[in-house]
């Protein structure tokens, strides 16, 4: 695989996807510290919002310790290199939420839908593009649809005005061949000025290999998190990936040593303090194995504690039922059903 000389942009998820790992309990100081460490490492883009995107704070997903606005207001003014993105899931957040953060200095708006439901993003992508934001269409759970379907849905987001399209492995279920095929079909069909991106989870230990496969097939934006701070077994560990890129001769523009320090000195202590270290274990591995949305992990563990049904069994059942991102309310429902079935 010759990737030498390829230029890519790394996008850190620890302040958004990492919210899942610690039940959305980032203190403002933690956010500032981690974003400053990422800024120092010259990470070009970092995402800041509730784990389920803007306005995700809820009973269903967990209340954030602070509001999206409070986090953004604290983080953005202190940054010198990094720019900030936010995530929005139509059906959870609305254009009103976008308007609320518009003046805070956000540069990128990413609009995420399930990989077959892109048409619910029309209002938000159009709005974002019209207001001049770097606008990303983000197709979640992309393992659940064929390459042709992914292409069809990406075309919709493109038609609404997205300038970058993501093929997202929310369940950490994909293998490199699939990533290559799905990014490849998009690269072949979209004009060169449309960027492609890949967002991985490390549930099967494949996030780095998958991200490399994505670059090989033409992706130029790669998501990851320092110390893999993200849902499930975490995202593509960004400091590891940056080091691998260096060895391949892929240009990322980040300072690998500073990124290692951000992971080790800032991210890990936050996780430890919150008693959650995202790693591959039987539950997160089950997410990847069964193709289940990564942020279901802690909710399934809680159901295990409350109802005595193993998280792994709940997650397998959710996989069988074809649940999609956002259906956290199914976890308690399924656990209750399983108790009943056992009499």
């Amino acid at each position, binding site marked *: 695989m010759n990737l030498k000389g390829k230029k890519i942009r790394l996008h850190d998820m620890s302040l958004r996807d990492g919210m899942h790992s610690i039940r959305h309990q980032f203190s403002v100081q933690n956010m500032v510290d981690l974003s400053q460490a990422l800024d120092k490492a010259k990470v070009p883009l970092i995402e800041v919002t509730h784990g389920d995107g803007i306005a995700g704070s809820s009973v269903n997903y967990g209340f954030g310790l602070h509001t999206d606005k409070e986090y953004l207001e604290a983080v953005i003014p202190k940054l010198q290199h990094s720019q900030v993105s936010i995530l929005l899931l139509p*059906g959870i957040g*609305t254009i009103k939420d976008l308007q609320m953060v518009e003046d805070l200095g956000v540069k990128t708006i990413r609009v995420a839908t*399930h990989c077959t*439901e892109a*048409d619910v993003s029309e*209002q938000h992508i159009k709005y974002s593009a019209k207001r001049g934001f770097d606008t990303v269409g983000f197709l979640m759970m992309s393992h659940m649809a064929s390459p042709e379907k992914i292409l069809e849905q990406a075309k919709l987001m493109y038609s609404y005005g997205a300038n970058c399209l993501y093929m997202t492995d929310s369940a950490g279920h994909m293998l490199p061949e699939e990533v290559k095929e799905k990014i490849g079909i998009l690269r072949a069909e979209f004009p060169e000025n449309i960027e492609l991106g890949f967002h991985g989870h490390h549930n099967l230990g494949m996030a780095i290999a998958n991200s490399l496969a994505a670059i090989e097939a033409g992706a130029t934006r790669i998501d990851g998190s320092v110390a893999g701070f993200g849902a499930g077994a975490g995202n593509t560990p960004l400091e590891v990936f940056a080091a691998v890129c260096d060895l391949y001769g892929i240009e990322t523009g980040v300072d690998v040593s500073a990124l290692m320090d951000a992971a080790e000195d800032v991210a890990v202590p936050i996780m430890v303090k919150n008693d959650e270290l995202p790693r591959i274990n039987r539950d997160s591995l089950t997410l990847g194995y069964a193709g289940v949305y990564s942020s279901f992990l802690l909710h399934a563990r809680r159901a295990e504690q409350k109802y005595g049904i193993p998280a792994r069994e709940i997650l397998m059942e959710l996989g069988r039922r*074809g649940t*999609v991102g*956002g259906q956290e309310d199914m976890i308690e*429902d399924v656990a209750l059903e399983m108790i009943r079935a056992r009499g």
Partner: protein
Amino acid sequence: MAKIRCALIGPGNIGTDLLYKLKRSEVLEPVWMVGIDPTSDGLARARDMGLKTTADGVDGLIPHIEADNIQIAFDATSAYAHAETSRKLTEKGVKVIDLTPAAIGPFCVPPVNLLDHLDKGEENVNMVTCGGQATIPMVYAVSRVQPVRYGEIVATVSSKSAGPGTRKNIDEFTQTTSGAIEKVGQAKKGKAIIILNPAEPPLMMRDTIHCITETEPRQDAIIESVKAMEAEVQKYVPGYRVKEGPIFDGNRVSVFVEVRGRGDYLPEYAGNLDIMTAAAARTAEMFAEQMLKA
């Protein structure tokens, strides 16, 4: 027995499903179906069912209102078009039942506040959203027992049952539903989430209702209130069922609901369609009975 004559605007999923229900009514007679595309399946279907149709939008209907004695109209188009449509109809003395999330008129969730609207003789009532019809009765079932500080609902519908109107207007869904959780459900703060699931075979509409009460939940009273409300909704949506709950966790009260549709136009999984059109039909029937008595 005399019937009140009605027009339906919007021959999509909702309008067509509603038409099936009106055809069964003892007090309502669907006369007109209004669309904007002369080649649409919905208009053809309505014609086959014996309705007069126009593809010229509401302007195609207005000249016939008096001659055909249309007294109630249902708008199942989109939030954007509704204000103008409603103005033209109410000017002619037609009562408007709004199935879009436009919400010009007061929200109507039949088992909670239909009788209030009847007393006031409202000329336009809004049916909130499918998710609102399925969940707000349960928010109210808790808030009538004790104050609810926060009400949150998660509505999950099958992709196949969500038409282009719903998809294009997804923000209106969340905003209208959360507003009605407060105004009708009487939670101090409301939040609504909608999720589309493409699984095959399509899943049944399911809804989760979380209420956070101000003080410790009075469990027995809430259980009884939820049960009574379930029976109220079942009067017009037979497939409405509390699947699990109420579950109590500190001050959180959670109810899990499933809505099996009657399979009028779309199959049974489309409980979201069924509860919306059944609520609209029930509202119109109550208005019609009032008109017939007068």
